[in-house]
């Protein structure tokens, strides 16, 4: 059994505030990822790559299909998992690194990075020293470690975020453009970290827009092509996913989705 097995997943968003229109995001996607493999999702902007990662992480509900992951000695279907199980899966099995750091008010960068280890029950001193080592590796200046990252630059925040995502031993990592605003030197370090994870047998499912990055880490690519959608909200979902939709309105709906995300971040 592969570490991650995605079969025939499908999802659409129903925008109740816009007259109940249905926006298909993913349809009939299947793939598997083996242990120690780094697979990059490929496709144009708005094709639903991020949605796939969020479905695997349980942030987006999966309407059809199954997402099987190996959690300890069990196989869990994330598409139908109970929130309580999902919480444990996230704690020890599936990690997620987005492009944005979710800043927790008043918590220092050091504590923020150490937090996933503490949640696993790691000893406080061990967690802190591991966090510091990782921050150091990612060239986050030591003078910043004790400060809350809210005022850091975009690149610094992103590196804190990477450290937070990479500190644990989760066997499956989901990376959503974690290196988007990094300079060449730090990108190189991220590549090294990813390769190190790979060597340790960690499975990764990633999105990278940067071609150099993609080539450096990817073992395999999975194509995610944009779905075309109709505008009629009352149509059943299976039909809607097959109806064409102009690219402009597709982009618009993507923007609308982001609206939800950014709203909660503050």
């Amino acid at each position, binding site marked *: 059994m592969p570490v991650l097995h995605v079969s025939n997943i499908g999802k659409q968003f129903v925008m109740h505030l816009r007259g109940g229109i249905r926006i298909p995001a993913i349809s009939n996607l299947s793939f598997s990822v083996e242990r120690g493999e780094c697979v990059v999702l490929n496709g144009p902007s708005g094709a639903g790559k991020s949605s796939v990662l969020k479905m695997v992480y349980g*942030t987006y509900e999966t309407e059809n299909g199954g997402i099987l992951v190996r959690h300890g000695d069990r196989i869990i279907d994330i598409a139908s998992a*109970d*929130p*309580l199980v999902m*919480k*444990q899966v996230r704690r020890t099995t599936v990690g997620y690194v987005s492009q944005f750091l979710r800043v*927790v008010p008043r*918590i220092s960068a050091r504590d923020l990075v150490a937090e996933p280890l503490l949640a696993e029950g790691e000893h406080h001193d061990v967690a802190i020293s591991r966090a510091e080592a990782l921050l150091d590796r990612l060239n986050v200046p030591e003078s910043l470690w004790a400060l809350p990252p809210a005022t850091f630059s975009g690149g610094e925040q992103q590196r804190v975020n990477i450290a937070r995502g990479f500190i644990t031993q989760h066997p499956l990592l989901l990376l959503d453009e974690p290196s988007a605003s990094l300079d060449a030197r730090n990108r190189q370090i991220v590549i090294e970290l990813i390769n190190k994870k790979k060597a340790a047998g960690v499975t990764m499912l990633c999105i990278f827009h940067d071609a150099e990055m993609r080539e450096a880490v990817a073992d395999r690519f999975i194509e995610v092509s944009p779905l075309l959608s109709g505008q009629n909200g009352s149509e059943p979902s299976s039909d809607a996913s097959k109806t064409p939709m102009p690219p402009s309105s597709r982009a618009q709906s993507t923007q609308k989705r982001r609206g939800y995300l950014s709203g*909660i971040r503050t």
Partner: protein
Amino acid sequence: MSDVVKPVLQVNGLTKVFDRRLACQDISFTLHRGEVLGIVGESGSGKSTLLKCLAGLMPPDAGNITLSLPDREECDLWRLEEAERERLLPTILAIIHQNARDGLRLDVSAGGNISEPLMTNGHRHYGTLRSVAMEWLKNVEIDPARVDDLPQTFSGGMQQRLQIARGLVTHPQLVLMDEPTGGLDVSVQAKLLDLLRRLVREFNLAVVIVTHDLGVARLLSDRLMVMQSGRVIETGLSDRVLEDPRQPYTQLLVSSVLQV
């Protein structure tokens, strides 16, 4: 695996009627130790009524509230004798009110406020009570030297933290919070959120938190329950509910958040 462990709290079909209006309608959920459940919804959606039923302050008209506690048999909160319920609740449950003044005795010193729940549970050693009080002041980041000061001399944020110390000093299994960060300014709120996160982890608390602040809900809670007109209309992992809201009302709620 902890998912086979009995939940601390099981609510089943809870219903409460006011003047033939359903304040809570057929509400069911479970809560485990170490878990934080957020309840969001507009005023009048039944959040506070639900919290009052859970707190033993108001009997539901139908449904069960089942508590599974270590060292005792599973029991239904509202099928216990009143005396038994009143004896049990202070030892297992803490309520953190939105207004710290509702949860504190303002004419009693900080130390007295923290010690009272212990004394109610039968503790009779002044020296121990006092050192526990000072330890808890430290825990909630108040200078222990202020142990003899009246809460009236404390700032709003400090009063709220004092209330939390008073609530948690008995190591309750279950903590109910009603808008714990409401009415505090943003920097004070941040400090409180940080503190609550730490305490939840440190004491493996089971928490139900009612709030209308989605940011607070996301930061503190593992799961969210969205209420509208007395019903639970959507429930799931916090990030799932907030990033992929399914119900029209939830979408409205999420899209109504002010963006900084």
